[in-house]
């Protein structure tokens, strides 16, 4: 009986396992990663490979230290964290930056709290924010995207959101970005993190995940809709100071965050109602940071803040237990 596996509920079996979920998400991320590789070249491949290898290595190390055996290594969550982290970094990230990121993600955010399923914050996002606050210069020197090249030399370029904040600060208006073509960022030709640049590729991955039933529509759709509606209202109020909602859709990390990081099973609410609250909260915080905050981009902060609120949301959106009266009925 040494093969007995002890596991918590639910005990109803489904063909869906942690592995299928993780590998589906990885699969869905590939188009976005491919666009990154196309525009940023060998550098992007280096960052992705290094990040995944290091994350898996630290996962193995953590499991060893904690005496858990190597079984959980197969679930693919470390590979996913590595890939997500890489997609959140500039493509010219030096190796030491990736190393620190992986330590923060796997050791500090995941295993200190007890490993997969116990962490309250998304590991890749915590790592990104840690790096952004620690090394703002390195983390915001985005290489300019160009068609595939083997050269490792890059010219750095600000993100459209960064340009917008700078121009608002300097001239009080949106500057060049008011007139920029929105087709480029939609496909992915803009400055930014390795994997956030192509809204199109990320959307395709998201549709794949929803179609396969890996994630539900609630979080991504409410998140993106909230951002759209709020930026639209501000845009109508003052188009000189606030960019169009479409601009906010296709730039920055919104698609990557809404589809792949806000939907992390472990750190987001369980019920559909809770997910909607979560998505709207993420959207509102993102818009507030983008329009009024010190940082040009607010997706990571928004998702982390809502991660912190997840236990509370879950508590208030608990479905009625079968056979028990609702609170109203109980009072009556």
């Amino acid at each position, binding site marked *: 009986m040494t093969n007995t596996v002890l596991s918590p509920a639910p005990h109803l079996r489904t063909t869906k396992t942690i592995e299928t979920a993780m590998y589906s998400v990885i699969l869905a991320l590939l188009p976005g990663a491919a666009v990154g590789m196309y525009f940023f070249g060998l550098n992007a491949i280096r960052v992705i490979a290094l990040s995944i290898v290091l994350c898996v290595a630290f996962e193995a190390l953590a499991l060893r230290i904690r005496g858990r055996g190597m079984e959980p290594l197969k679930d693919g969550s470390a590979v996913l964290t590595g890939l997500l982290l890489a997609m959140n970094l500039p493509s010219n990230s030096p190796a*030491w930056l990736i190393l*620190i990121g992986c330590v923060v993600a796997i050791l*500090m955010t995941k295993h200190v709290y007890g490993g997969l399923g116990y962490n309250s914050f998304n590991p890749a996002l915590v790592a990104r924010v*840690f790096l952004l*606050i*620690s*090394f*703002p210069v*390195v983390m915001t020197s985005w290489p300019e995207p160009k068609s595939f090249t083997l050269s490792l030399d890059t010219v750095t370029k600000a993100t459209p959101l960064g340009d917008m904040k700078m121009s608002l600060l300097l001239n009080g208006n949106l500057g060049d970005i008011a007139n920029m073509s929105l087709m480029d960022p939609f496909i992915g030709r803009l400055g930014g993190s390795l994997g956030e640049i192509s809204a199109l590729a990320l959307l395709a991955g998201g549709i794949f995940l929803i179609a396969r039933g890996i994630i539900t529509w609630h979080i991504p759709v409410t998140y993106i809709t909230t951002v759209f509606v709020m930026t639209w209202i501000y845009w109508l109020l003052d188009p000189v100071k606030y960019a169009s909602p479409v601009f906010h859709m296709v730039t920055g990390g919104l698609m990557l965050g809404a589809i792949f990081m806000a939907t992390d099973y472990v750190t987001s609410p369980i019920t559909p109602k809770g997910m909607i609250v979560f998505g709207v909260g993420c959207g509102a915080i993102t818009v507030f940071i983008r329009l009024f905050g010190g940082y040009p981009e607010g997706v990571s902060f928004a998702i982390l803040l809502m991660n912190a609120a997840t236990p509370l949301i879950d508590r208030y959106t608990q479905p009625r237990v079968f056979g028990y009266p609702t609170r109203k009925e109980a009072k009556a």
Partner: protein
Amino acid sequence: MSGYGVEFTKGLWSENPVFRMVLGLCPALAVTNTVVNSIAMGLATMFVLLCSNTVVSTLRNFIPDKVRIPSFIIIIASFVTIVDLTMAAWAHPIHKTLGLFVPLIVVNCLILGRSEAFASRHPVLRSVVDGLGMGVGFTIALITIGAVREILGSGTFLGYSVLGAGYTDMLVMILPPGAFLAMGALLGMFNAVDHRR
């Protein structure tokens, strides 16, 4: 008289105010972004602790139980004001950096805690030794946190470069979150060492 050694060393390890009793966290987290600040805050706190322990212990049979807390607070606040004025007069730059956190020593629960739990129940000499041990333990704890934060966050120790020019400062460590990270890591290490024993 035996036991004075134990009275002193308990503040260093087994009852270390920061790492074992988790007291006095406001200064331990707020001003430990450099080692110099840590030392200054540690010494200021130690002075107040020593003086208040002495006075409280001397007056312990004189102060009625009902007004002991206000009495302790007045005594502590007086010494804090003395430290504040003295630093402003003769250590102006460091007083400027520590700013509000010097007056805030009044509400450091470590000091009131020692008055209430130890000095008001023990003879003067024993209270002095206790205050000294706790003060030294607190200072060492602050310096430890300060060293971790300064070395990682600025690549320096006491202002001297230790990690070389090629090091990229890990800014988060000298910002407020870094205090919590350093504190958490050190607490974990202390616990791990304790478990081994």
